[in-house]
Every structure is written in C-alpha cells, then in structure tokens.
C-alpha cells in the first residue's frame, strides 16, 4: 500500500466523518476557546476533537471534527483572531470536497473584550463591536470608546 493511502486509511479509522467540517491547525491552547466561539458546546451534532497533536508549524495543534455541520464564512472567521492558521476541510461522503482558510473579518462582534477599562462595554451588558483596522499585527477599534485594542491586548469574552 502506498504511504499516502496508508496514512489516509489510518486517519479515517480513527475519526472519519461522512459529512461535515474538519477544522485543523488550531493552536492547542486555543481549542476550548474555538469550541466556545463557534458555539460547539451547545449544538447536538457529533463532535470529535484531538489536542496536543504534533505540528511542525504550531508546536502542538488541535483538530475538531463536526459531523453534518457546514459553517458560513463569517461564522468560521470569528476564530481567526485566536487561530489565524486554521484550515477547514469540508467533507462530503468521506472525501474532502473543499478546503478553506480563515480570514480576519472586517467586524468582530461579541467575542472580544475592549481593553479599555473605562469603556461603556465593560460596565453595561453591551455586545462588544470592533472594526478591524489592521490584520497583521491585529488592531481592533472599539465602536463605542474608539480606542484601539492591539494584538497583545486581545482578550476573549
């Protein structure tokens, strides 16, 4: 058997899904944040995940496989801030039908906390909202207080 076929077979044995989405190249430390942001902790689909897997790029990576779930781009792009190298494989009938990469969206709503302690969003129940003014390094401008949250100041809600 060819090496690639062998690898594929081995992978399928462990975690094959018939239809759905595989999110790969998630930094291991961000796995549970990704699960929360995508709302995977509240849906009823079958989900498998692995973490602390070897990755040349990330050191330790995580992978999530969601059966019968196909994300909209803006839905999946929410994770771009914490998993900028994430890749999606769309699986149909056990085959990779499409590959996607995440992109930082123009607006970030409801997932990031404004770093400014005097911002109204940190005092009342308000959905935070930022426009992305730079993607590398990431810089987010708060819709409300107009302050810029820099990449190293980003905290998820």
């Amino acid at each position: 058997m060819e090496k690639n076929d062998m690898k594929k077979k081995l992978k399928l044995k462990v975690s094959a899904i018939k239809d759905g989405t595989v999110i790969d190249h998630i930094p291991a430390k961000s796995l549970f944040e990704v699960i929360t942001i995508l709302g995977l902790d509240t849906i009823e689909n079958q989900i498998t995940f692995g973490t602390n897997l070897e990755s040349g790029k990330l050191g330790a990576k995580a992978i999530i496989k969601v059966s019968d779930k196909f994300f909209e781009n803006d839905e999946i792009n929410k994770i771009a801030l914490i998993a900028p190298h994430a890749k999606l494989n769309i699986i149909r009938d056990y085959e990779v039908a499409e590959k996607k990469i995440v992109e930082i969206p123009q607006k970030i709503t409801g997932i990031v906390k404004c770093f400014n302690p005097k911002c109204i969003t940190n005092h009342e129940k308000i959905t935070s909202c930022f426009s992305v003014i730079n993607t590398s390094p990431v810089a987010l401008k708060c819709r409300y207080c107009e302050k810029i949250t820099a990449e190293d100041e980003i905290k998820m809600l």
Partner: protein
Amino acid sequence: MKKDLISITDFSKEEYLRIMELAADFEKNPNQELLKGKVVASLFFEPSTRTRLSFETAINRLGGRIVGFADPDSSSATKGETLHDTIRMVSNYADIIVMRHPLEGAARYAAEVSSVPIINAGDGANQHPTQTLLDMYSILKTQGTLDDLNLFMVGDLKFGRTVHSLLQAMSVFENPIFNFIAPESLQMPRGFKHHLEERGIRYFEHEEFTDIISEADIIYMTRVQKERFSDPIEYEKVKDVYILNKAMLENTKPNVRVLHPLPRVNEIATDVDSSEKAYYFEQALNGVFTREAIISHVMNLK
C-alpha cells in the same frame, strides 16, 4: 434616519461648514425660537458646569425647555439604573438629549438605544465634539479661513481629547501644518500622527516652543496635569516650559490667537488676558452660538 453628534468624525467637511454658517447666523441673532414647544433633556452623569451652562444658554436662546439633572447624585443611576434604561425612558419624554457621561463610548451606546437625537457633551476621555466645533468656529472667525493654517498644540497631547478631535477635524481642510509641543511623556499618540501621515499632512514635534512661536496662526494651549506624571521630577522639569506669557507673544504674527478649552490653571499667565491675541473667553462665548447651530442642525430646524 435620526441624526446624532457623537464623534467629530461623524460629520463631513460640508457639515462642519454648515455648522459654522449657522453659528455665524446665531451670533448675529442669538434669540431664535426654533425650539419653541420642544423639550431638551440635559443629562449630566458627571458635573461639568461650563459645558452645561453653555448648552442650557443655547437651549434657552432657542426657546426650548430643559429637563434633566446636573450631576449623577440626583439621577436614578445612583439606584443602579442602567444607562440603557435611563436613555430609553428619557427618549420617550424629550425631543433631543444632550448627554455628558464619565464612561467612554457611553454616547455612542445611548445613540443606539435612543429614538431621539443624542448630542455628546463629553464621554470620558473619548470625544467632546461640540468643543471641537466651537474651536473650529473660533479659528474661522479669527483667521477668516480654515485652510493653510499653522496650528500649535501645546501641553498634554497624550490624554487631551480636545486636541485629538481638533486634529481630526482640521485635517480635512487644505494644507494644515501641525506643531505638537509636549513633554516626551505626553506626546501626541501614534495613531493620530499616523492619521496625518496617511493624508500627507505635515507635522512637527517639539519639547519647547519659545523659539518657533513666531510661525503660529493658532496657539491651542492645554493643561499639563501633574497627576498624569508617574515621576514628579519629570513634571517639575517641564511645567514651566509650557506657561505662555505676554512677552512671548511680542514677535508673533498679528493674526495669531491663543485658544484654550478652559479651565486654565497656570499655563496661560494672566498678563496674556489683556493681549488682543488672547481669545479664550471669546472662544467660550462662541460655544453658545455653535451649540445653537448644532442643535438646529441635528433636529433639522434650519
């Protein structure tokens, strides 16, 4: 769609000019009963006597009636009512809301919640757009133009919201030059300099200004606040460098005018008051005409 004034960048250059035109009209004839039969809510969640009196004078001159509170102790905020609920309630009662709030972004949020126009009378260290418009009106009145001006901004340029907003507003006009004079620890933030660089606008940074003051058309003074310094020795080093006195104005351009958002402490010596180049008290009066103009503009009264 209702119109609000939350951030100075909400308005276009055409709107700035429209406000200036209306302000000039109100200056000629301050008492115009455009708000007759209308109720204005004046919600000051933090005290600001100067801004509040200026707004209330403008509203009175427009024939409007005022409801509201002058400090948060007399509002339901002390009972734990959210800003959301206060604004929802008051926007049922009044035709327009003027709001001052200590938290940044409060005005933008209020505008989302309110069914009537909101005018931001200051939200923390964020925006104070009506101050900026009255500053612009003062510049226009004294210089006859908003183009080709050399603007000196002096003092706390790091935390001073008035200079940040004025920089943003003036950068839409032709060929401005900015001179920023501040101690190293209170320099103009990077983001605002980037804003100018993107537009190809010249700016210069200095720690002293005595030798270059002759180039200025406008000297916009702000307070260097002691509490902004983590090192008191640093404050002692710079505090006297930024005191403008009458002698310093001797070799300046005849058209130069000294502006200050007030209150001043000691950054403008009192001997400047008698100089024809001092303009800060007139600037405060211009605030009434400008606020009449802003109210009329957002309510489509003129």
